[in-house]
């Protein structure tokens, strides 16, 4: 089935089509589906998804049903691990400390405000709602890996996972999207960060080159919380990461670092919608793009400071490096600020450019070959983002 | 000149000054000392009508009149000048232009015509020469990118042009090395005469070596805990502010 066909199928038919069990969440699936249909699939003129190349996934005919039973090799690791295979939790491949539990989510929250059709789609069509609970006041010594694997070609796979981080806890979440099939993977991760909790979260997307991935993130940060988010985007044919972040409690702080490295005909998009909705909240964003060949990179980052956000401090910086002379190459950057109060400090900056010829010349004059000089400068550019990634993730994300 | 009586002041509902009394006569130099956070700067800001501070009680008379109802600009035009500890930067506002506006506001108050740009430039040149200030400070935007020393020099320049009668010097020694401190102090001394008074706020005694006070007051618990002459400052230097705790138990 193609995604465009979902629009035309009657809601009850869709539910029957995907063979969902009738239970307490069925009506929520239907509500999400109806909202999805009301919004429709985004087209070229869409405010947010217009530039993301999302239409390329509409033409693919995905398998009618979800096939289970794929078996993927997962790279070894000593970390704690939660593995989702083909949208299902895989306890045998997972390993967790006692203070972390994976359960079925019986009361998933459907966001009323969301206008993201893919979030709604993931809500409607996921196989099971899962939640990950982390107890209060735990400080885990090792990161928890959340690994998504899939090997069935030409399939689609939707997920909705909620994470609850208990008060005062401190966790590292290393989220790895290792999809090895030409499929459409659309998942939501909703993180509820309770008072005083601290989360470090690495999103690694390094999927196979013919995969389409949409990641929907919802962050809800309570008072005195801190989130460090790192996004590494390298693989897939098309990838869109949508980060909706709500700083809802006083003194909540969020720092976001992204490294986006599209090559060939890839289309990678980072979309951020950040809300300062409580006093004295802080945020920073650093987004680095290195665009090669005929690839496209999109950054659409919005900061909203509401009436409640007195004392907000927000900064945002997007740097793009275009390395290709091909006509199809594109960097689209849209840093936005929406401000509804006067008591704040907000700034943003963006640069788009290529390598500095004078710098290359200087390096070459010291005996370094042209190609090597370029490499040095490209490394220097991405290093500013890469260096900020936590140690536990660095060795993996540099590898491929 | 300045008569502060039973002054009670709060900021954000927190009482800072609680029944402070102070008398400054024409030509006198008073130093206010005390540990950090005791409310020294509050006193200077309240006298100059900073809007963040709430006067809960007491009175401030200046040259015989009650000034509590006057706003900051009115008090400034009456001759009260606050030299800031950390003068704020105002991008885009040319230093010279600003100073001319301020100067002409003062002239207007005195019933004089505005001074022409040419005459004003002459005046500034004369004053900067006297103070030994490098000329380019006033070509730039107000305090923007100034070094600590330049900011203080700029305050001195403003002071010398506006010719106030009551100088409120709020820790002007902060962030200055000894040489810079000396030159700022010299600048102040040049401006002083028997008709002008000084309220000097400082944490350290070293400032008092360069601007000689007639009286030294120690601020503690929101009021003047002890008063004396320069020897009091020396005593503080030797024994530290901890001795105040004893004072309190006595009083």
């Amino acid at each position, binding site marked *: 089935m193609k995604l465009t066909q979902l629009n035309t199928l009657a809601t009850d038919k869709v539910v029957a089509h995907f063979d969902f069990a009738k239970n307490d969440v069925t009506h929520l699936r239907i509500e999400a589906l109806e909202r999805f249909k009301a919004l429709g699939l985004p087209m070229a003129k869409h405010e947010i998804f217009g530039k993301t190349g999302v239409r390329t996934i509409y033409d693919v005919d995905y398998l009618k049903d979800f096939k289970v039973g794929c078996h993927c090799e997962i790279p070894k690791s000593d970390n704690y691990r939660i593995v989702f295979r083909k949208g299902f939790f895989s306890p045998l491949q997972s390993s967790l400390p006692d203070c972390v539990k994976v359960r079925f989510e019986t009361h998933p929250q459907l966001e009323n405000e969301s206008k993201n059709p893919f979030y709604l789609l993931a809500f409607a069509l996921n196989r099971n709602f899962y939640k990950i609970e982390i107890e209060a006041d735990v400080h885990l010594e090792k990161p928890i890996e959340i690994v998504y694997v899939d090997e069935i070609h030409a399939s689609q796979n939707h997920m909705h996972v909620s994470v609850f981080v208990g008060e005062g806890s401190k966790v590292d979440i290393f989220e790895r999207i290792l999809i090895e099939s030409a499929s459409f993977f659309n998942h939501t991760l909703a993180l509820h960060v309770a008072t005083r909790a601290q989360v470090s979260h690495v999103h690694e997307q390094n999927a196979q080159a013919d995969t389409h991935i949409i990641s929907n993130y919802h962050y809800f940060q309570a008072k005195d919380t801190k989130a460090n988010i790192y996004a590494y985007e390298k693989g897939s044919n098309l990838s869109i990461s949508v980060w909706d972040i709500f700083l809802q409690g006083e003194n909540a702080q969020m720092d976001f670092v992204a490294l986006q490295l599209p090559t060939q005909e890839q289309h990678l998009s980072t979309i951020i919608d950040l809300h300062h909705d409580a006093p004295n909240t802080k945020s920073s964003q650093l987004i680095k793009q290195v665009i090669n060949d005929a690839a496209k990179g999109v950054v659409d980052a919005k900061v909203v400071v509401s009436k409640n956000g007195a004392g907000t401090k927000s900064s945002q910086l997007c740097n793009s490096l275009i390395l290709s002379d091909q006509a199809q190459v594109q960097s689209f950057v849209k840093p936005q*600020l929406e401000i509804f109060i006067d008591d704040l400090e*907000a700034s*943003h900056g963006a640069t788009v*450019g290529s390598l500095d010829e004078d710098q290359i010349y200087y390096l070459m004059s010291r005996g370094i070959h042209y190609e090597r000089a370029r490499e040095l400068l490209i490394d220097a550019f991405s290093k500013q983002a890469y260096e900020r990634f936590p140690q536990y993730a660095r060795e993996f994300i540099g590898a491929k | 000149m300045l008569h502060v009586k039973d002054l009670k002041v709060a900021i954000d509902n927190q009482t800072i000054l609680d029944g402070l009394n102070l008398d400054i006569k024409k030509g006198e130099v008073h130093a206010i000392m005390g540990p950090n956070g005791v409310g020294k700067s509050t006193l200077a800001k309240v006298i100059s009508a900073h809007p963040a501070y709430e006067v809960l009680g007491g009175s401030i008379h200046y040259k015989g009149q009650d000034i509590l109802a006057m706003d900051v600009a009115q008090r400034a035009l009456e001759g009260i000048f606050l030299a800031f500890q950390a003068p704020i930067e105002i991008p885009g*506002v040319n230093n010279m232009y600003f100073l001319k*506006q*301020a100067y002409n*506001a003062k002239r207007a108050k005195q019933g004089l015509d505005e001074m022409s740009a040419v005459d004003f430039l002459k005046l500034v040149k004369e004053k900067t020469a006297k103070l030994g200030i490098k000329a380019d400070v006033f070509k730039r935007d107000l305090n923007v990118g100034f070094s600590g020393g330049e900011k203080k020099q700029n305050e001195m320049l403003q002071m010398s042009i506006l010719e106030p009668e009551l100088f409120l010097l709020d820790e002007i020694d902060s962030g200055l090395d000894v040489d810079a401190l000396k030159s700022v102090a010299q600048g102040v001394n040049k401006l002083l005469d028997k008709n002008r008074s000084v309220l000097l706020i400082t944490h350290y005694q070293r400032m008092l070596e360069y601007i000689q006070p007639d009286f030294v007051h120690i601020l503690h618990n929101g009021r003047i805990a002890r008063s004396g002459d320069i020897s009091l400052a020396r005593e503080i230097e030797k024994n530290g502010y901890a001795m105040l705790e004893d004072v309190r138990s006595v009083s």
Partner: protein
Amino acid sequence: MSENQVVNDILDKEYALGFTTQIDSDTAPKGLDKTILDFISAKKDEPQWMLERRYKALDIWQKMQEPSWANLEYPPINYQDISYFSAPKKKLDSLDEVDPEILSTYEKLGIPLEEQKVLAGVAVDAVFDSVSVKTTFEKQLKDKGIIFCSISEAVKNNRDLVEQYLFSVVPMNDNYFAALNAAVFTDGTFVYIPKGVRCPMELSTYFRINAVGTGQFERTLIIADEGSYVSYNEGCSAPTRDENQLHAAVVELIALKDAQINYSTIQNWYPGDENGKGGIYNFVTKRGICKGANAKISWTQVETGSAITWKYPSCILAGDNSVGEFYSIAVASRAQQADTGSKMIHVGKNTKSTIISKGVSAMRGLNAYRGMVKVGSNAKGARNFTQCDSLIIGANARAHTYPYIDVHNASANVEHEATTSKISDEQLFYLMQRGLREEDAVSMIVNGFCKEVLGKLPMEFAMEARELLNVTLEGSVG
């Protein structure tokens, strides 16, 4: 604290240009259909070809939807409740016959059409409601081969130029308001500077909406032939009225090889009251094309008026080494909404653009910067620098920034910077401690904030703009 109150009081100063002029007007019946186009065309004694184009534009407009992407809030406009033509009744046979009432209107506005501008060496075209009432210096300019006249005259007398260039930069179907304008445009200014001529004086148009229930739909076309130079300024005002009046203008600039056009606007349409009642809806399309190599177009605008401003003066940098600039000060006070910015489209090689935008929001004002920098795949060596700063005065003001950067070429270099700040209490305290009144202190800070842009205006207009900033500022800051 009393501070905000004082600022609001300052901001709340009366709109000084809100008077009405009593003159006999010839006004079209309300509504819009083909017969109105016939009416306008007949009034202006237009050739048939022009009327045909109006028909075509109306046809296009009727099939279009009013845009909503700018998130501006206003009640739906009833386009059938507007009169699309209003002109002073008395017909002008010569320039000396301008109605004395109109002349005195312009004097009240501080725009005496004769003496002072003669002294200042500025040639003025004045558009009163729908028609151009007077163009000064026409003859002196003619000696140099410069054409400076109303667009109606140009339609009749300069058909070749008009046919070639009208709708060439802003096509009829460009957007909803451009289509509307193409159908009903009544007057506006036409300028042609011949090859190699440097226009010896500032050219200036003053726009005034006077009649009730009318809109103003002027269209301006400026062509700078190879190697020529012109500096053009426009000013706008309107009476204080409870109703909202529509102003949908189009400006097209064409700079050929080595030519330069500087276009400055001081827009002070009636902004409406603090509750958002009344005021002009200023929906304007302005675009220039640097057609030849080394051409340069520079837009400077000071936007203090209008209830709603929807305006993005843009440059298409087609010629190699061409340069586009946009300098803007936009003030939104009271209940004003300003959505403004610029588009720089880099097509040719080594093209350069600069955008400096200063937005001031006060009271319940909304100021949005919306801009696009697009570098095409052939625009080797394109450079852009954008800086947009917002100054917020008061807790209810809003400042939004929406830059779009779309680059298709590796050799491009695009830089964007934005800051948001407020007038801090400490800054006000500092200035007032030196004896400045609060309103002077606020004005000083705002002028400092806008300094870079004010410096780009021609001398005579910089004074006017500064004055306007102070009044508006003592009225809306800015």
